[in-house]
């Protein structure tokens, strides 16, 4: 996966220049980190959903739109916007996110609907619901704190969304360290029957991954709306589920579920953002950008595919053999499988 980033890095000269503008880090790398914040968070949720339920949630952009609509509604009805207000509003939006996740989760785990089909409901109707919550408007969010969340807190050189994303990743890492979530999700994704016969409840695990996805949507929506300064229920995080699914795939995860790597998906998300920005930087015509993106993705996927990986490994082995043929037989007999004699 790291190979992919390197390929991209070769693209531009003076790529790593970072400078301070108005007291904040500015440059290509910080821009990528800034821009990819929502995608990274959503990709984490998508990885878990994919791994456990062997399908994808395509309503994440719409869920984020609904939760951020609730956030905005709460903030705007407050007479005075304090940090407390923002915190309560964001917690409220997380609760809504959980509810939306529970909706999808129930359909998938209890009613055994395929994830993509289940999330189709919110995908279709989500933005209209958000529009209703907005009072059929596009409300503006223009208070100091929102500004700071969307861009930068005075005195802190790193943009806030980047900080928020990092904190989120750390929390996820803690979650994996303190629970058996990874093992259970992988077991359920690989073989739900066997998992059940070992005492794991596949329904509960799948439901849990959708709840987590709901929270991810809420957090992503929170960041997006504060960045934008207004709530546009039509365009907020539009079609982001495509990039999220792509991030999961580029990260080396199987879209058919099972073993997963969150790190892979995170790298995948940043790679996509890097790709987007690189294409802009190369001053390609706007109409052609999508075409180039598609070509790039095809190259990435082929290079990362199992077939190519096996071929690359074989070639590497052959090169190693040609260099030192004697070392090969030594390698093969090192792993000693105990024979009956040795007992």
């Amino acid at each position, binding site marked *: 996966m790291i190979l992919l980033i390197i390929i991209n890095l070769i693209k531009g000269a003076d790529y790593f220049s970072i400078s301070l503008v108005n007291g904040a880090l500015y440059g290509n790398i910080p821009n990528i980190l800034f821009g990819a914040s929502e995608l990274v968070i959503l990709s984490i949720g998508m990885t878990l959903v994919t791994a456990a339920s062997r399908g994808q949630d395509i309503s994440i952009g719409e869920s984020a739109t609904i939760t951020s609509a609730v956030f905005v509604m709460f903030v705007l009805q407050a007479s005075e916007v304090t940090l407390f207000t923002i915190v309560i509003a964001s917690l409220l939006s997380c609760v809504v996110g959980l509810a939306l996740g529970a909706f999808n989760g129930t359909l998938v785990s209890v009613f055994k609907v395929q994830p993509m089909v289940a999330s189709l409901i919110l995908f279709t109707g989500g933005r209209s619901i958000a529009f209703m919550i907005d009072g059929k408007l596009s409300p503006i969010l223009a208070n100091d704190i929102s500004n700071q969340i969307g861009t930068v807190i005075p005195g802190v050189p790193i943009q806030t969304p980047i900080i928020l994303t990092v904190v989120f990743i750390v929390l996820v890492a803690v979650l994996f360290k303190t629970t*058996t979530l990874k093992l259970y999700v*992988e*077991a359920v994704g690989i*073989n739900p029957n066997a998992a059940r016969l070992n005492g794991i409840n596949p329904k509960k695990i799948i439901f849990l991954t959708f709840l987590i996805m709901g929270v991810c949507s809420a957090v992503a929506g929170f960041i997006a709306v504060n960045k934008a300064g207004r709530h546009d229920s039509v365009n907020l995080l539009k079609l982001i589920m495509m990039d999220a699914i792509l991030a999961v795939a580029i990260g080396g995860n199987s879209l058919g579920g099972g073993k997963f790597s969150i790190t892979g998906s995170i790298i995948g998300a940043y790679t996509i953002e890097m790709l987007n920005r690189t294409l802009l930087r190369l001053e390609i015509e706007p109409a052609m950008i999508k075409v180039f993106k598609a070509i790039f993705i095809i190259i990435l996927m082929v290079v990362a595919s199992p077939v190519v990986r096996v071929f690359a490994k074989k070639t590497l082995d052959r090169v190693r053999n040609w260099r030192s043929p004697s070392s090969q037989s030594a390698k093969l007999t090192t792993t000693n499988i105990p024979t009956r004699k040795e007992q």
Partner: protein
Amino acid sequence: MKDICKSFPGVKALDGVGFKLRKGEIHALMGENGAGKSTLIKVITGVYEKDAGLITLQGEPIHFKAPEEAQNKGIGTVYQEIMLCPNLTVAENMFIGRSHNPVVNWKQMNEKAAKLLDSLGIPASPTQELSSCSLAVQQMIAIARAVDMDCKILILDEPTSSLDEDEVHKLFVLMRELKERGVGIIFITHFLEQVYEISDMITVLRNGKLVGEYETASLSQFELISKMLGNELEDISKLKKYEPIVSDSITPVFEARGLSSAAGVRPFNFTIQKGEVNGFAGLLGSGRSESARAIFAADKVTGGEVSMKGKRVKIKTPLHAIKQGIGYLPEDRKDDGIIADLSVRDNIILTLQVLKGFFKPFSLKQAQVFAEEYIKKLNIKTPTPNTPIKSLSGGNQQKVILARWLLTHPEYLILDEPTRGIDVGTKVEIQKLVINLAASGMSLTFISSEIDEMLRTCSRLIVMKDREIVAELKGTELTENDVMNVIAQGGKTRCVN
């Protein structure tokens, strides 16, 4: 084939193996766990590519890059893990991938299928979904498919592991017929009696190397086993089963009253005492597995009550059963047992982890310690504890699942066909283990299609027929003849109600 070499990273699966198959010969390929039999077959049929050596077919050297090429050259294979599509019909499974004509004449296909099924005496209809057929019937359909493709060489990898005597007999009739037609058959099995009944030649592999090629008629069973195992042979008859102290006054470890399940198990009663090993005997379809699964709540329990050590408990899900100290080794290890992509280590600690709780994950170190302990205890052959379990041979996979349950120190362990598809050496190991566990105080249920295994280990045998318990045998009643009689009679004297 001469001097075939095939290596896998860290494990040389085949080392200078030679094999000869003559026209119209039934040739048995035998060897322990991981001896290389399945690998050899996969090299012959193009699933794997050999690293070194020469393969010739009728004098011409061949080099298959894909299974399809082997098929086209007349090599048909029926694998141990039935490689058919459960969601398609019987007829579709028989003819899929064979005709290059995109237009399918369904009527013709179904008629052809019906004729073939009939001629082989397979109890299935061409239009029924494959998954609705029992495992045994599915296997016979897989064989029918290979047979119909007019093969010159037919490879049968453990074809009889889930067939009963009648079905095995039918299979042998078929094999002899093919032999007459000049088809060369390679027959991999662990059933020694079958090898002696049907094969002309035997080739023995051990640890990836060729031990030798022998005429069946001139090799005694004892010699064969010693060639397969290498050194000192475990004398199976030395196994002495453990007879626990059983009396009505002692509270049984586990008791079920009127237990029924959604899998068609009719209400039955069952008790087991500490240190007892009980077996379930009966033909395929008699309900043995289903009854065991009902105890473990693997299938939905629809009625009845259970108690552990005299106390009423609720067991409605496998988790309840596990928490009460019951373990269950499933019959189908591929679909119900192994978590294929996870490592050997993760597969071993899984159930203990579930018992420990969601918020208390094992550290990598702890997990590694457990894994290595049981890899050693059960002699599991794996390159590392981190290897995905799917790369292990069937017998070693089974040992991993066994390790998983032993790690939880259950009070009562149910083993459903633990020796199916496993070599002689491991079979003996498992039987010894069962006896030792009973002696140390564990209660066990041991289900096996090989009655002699149960007779060797069980102190009590429950006979089932048509999903009902028809008899219980203990002590002096435990002889092969008695069991057979009960199974046979159980059907005739039962009243129709």
